[in-house]
């Protein structure tokens, strides 16, 4: 009985995975940085997903698919861009310098699409990933943990560090005026 419910929930391959094509593409596009490679990666991920589909048990389909997409993406990066930057999530955060807190907030609020895009693209790939999943895909921690294959505690440290890095990049783009609010 339970099995039947599961099967019914799982539906068929196309019904399960095609609705998440935009999410799959968005993740790959951010991590590999261009449309052409992103399309190749997503296509390969879908073929892998098809192979693994018999193991899909009707959980969150987007998380299940994105785990495969991220894995395919990392294989691609490993093969084609061995120097791609990946940094530890658990590195210590440094303490704050609050010499210009109001200025900092104003700058963040005023950041435009272009600046945000640049800043996000400049992050190490795993930080890009965690920010994309949380802020663009609006995923809960549990699903992010599932996609990235890490514990929820590491999701939290990763987000703390990733958000801090993103902010640093945003503020440093603005040159000297934001620098007071930064730390090294």
């Amino acid at each position, binding site marked *: 009985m339970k099995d039947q419910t599961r099967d019914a929930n799982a539906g068929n391959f196309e019904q399960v995975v095609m609705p998440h094509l935009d999410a799959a593409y968005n993740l790959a596009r951010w991590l590999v940085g261009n449309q052409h490679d992103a399309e190749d990666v997503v296509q390969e991920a879908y073929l892998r997903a098809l192979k693994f589909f*018999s193991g899909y*048990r009707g959980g969150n389909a987007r998380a299940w698919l994105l785990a*495969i997409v991220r894995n395919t993406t990392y294989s691609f990066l490993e093969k084609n861009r061995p120097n791609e930057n990946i940094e530890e999530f658990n590195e210590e955060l440094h303490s704050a310098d609050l010499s210009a807190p109001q200025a900092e907030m104003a700058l963040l609020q005023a950041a435009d699409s272009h600046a945000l895009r640049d800043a996000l693209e400049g992050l190490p790939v795993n930080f890009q990933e965690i920010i994309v999943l949380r802020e663009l895909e609006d995923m809960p921690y549990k699903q992010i943990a599932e996609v990235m294959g890490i514990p929820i505690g590491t999701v939290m440290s990763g987000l703390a560090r990733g958000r801090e890095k993103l902010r640093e990049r945003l503020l440093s783009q603005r040159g000297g005026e934001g620098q007071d609010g930064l730390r090294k």
Partner: protein
Amino acid sequence: MACENNDRLLQGYFDGELDLVRSVEFENHLKMCPECAHELKNQQAMRRALRGADLLEKAPKSLETRIVDSLPREKRQSIVQMRSRPAIRWFAFATAIALAIFLGAVVVRNVDNDRQALATENFLAQEIVSSHIHSLQAGHLFDVESTDQHTVKPWFDGKLDFAPPVVDLADYNFRLLGGRLEYLDGRSVAALVYQRQKHLINVFIWPQGSTSPKLPGAKSIQGYNLISWKRDEMEFCAVSDLNAAELRGFVRLLDR
């Protein structure tokens, strides 16, 4: 930047991921801690900017067509059939009963399942061999390179939801070289790398799940020997170009 020790809590609060008790605790903390209060406002400002910036990349229309076209049609349909099974299941059930009456046996229904199990089993074995071959290409062998089990084992902490056993077998001329993360059967698994003279051995380890396909005990694919076994609710599979007898010896040492 939040005050010491609170940066993770602050993320959780900001993302609505704390339970009620911790949420209230953190709100009390916020009243007394200007650093965290300021940090929270910064996070809000940045989120507004991020979400207002239209950063989501939409898949091009052509990609959908390309993917649907690239999916092997018959395989897609067989999956559809496998997954929309109630009718087939009833049919199998009815057949089984009919045959049971005629033959006094009720086992036929398993034949189809066995064939499917065999297909997944072969597929997983093939995946393992591909992973092994891929790992032999330059730069893919390990994420953590160390002959010390006490370096390799902790490296997996936080990267997997289980702790793979890491054993030093240098005394037996199987040298531990390192470990890495791999992806098999839809999940992250641990891979340990050992060396015997010029032969490399990959040992894949993952928790035994009710859903994971069974692997054959020993098998040879494309000239590589595979041996799989279970222990402490984990599945192991060793793969190498090492001859079958030596690989069995290696497995006996690991499985002690």
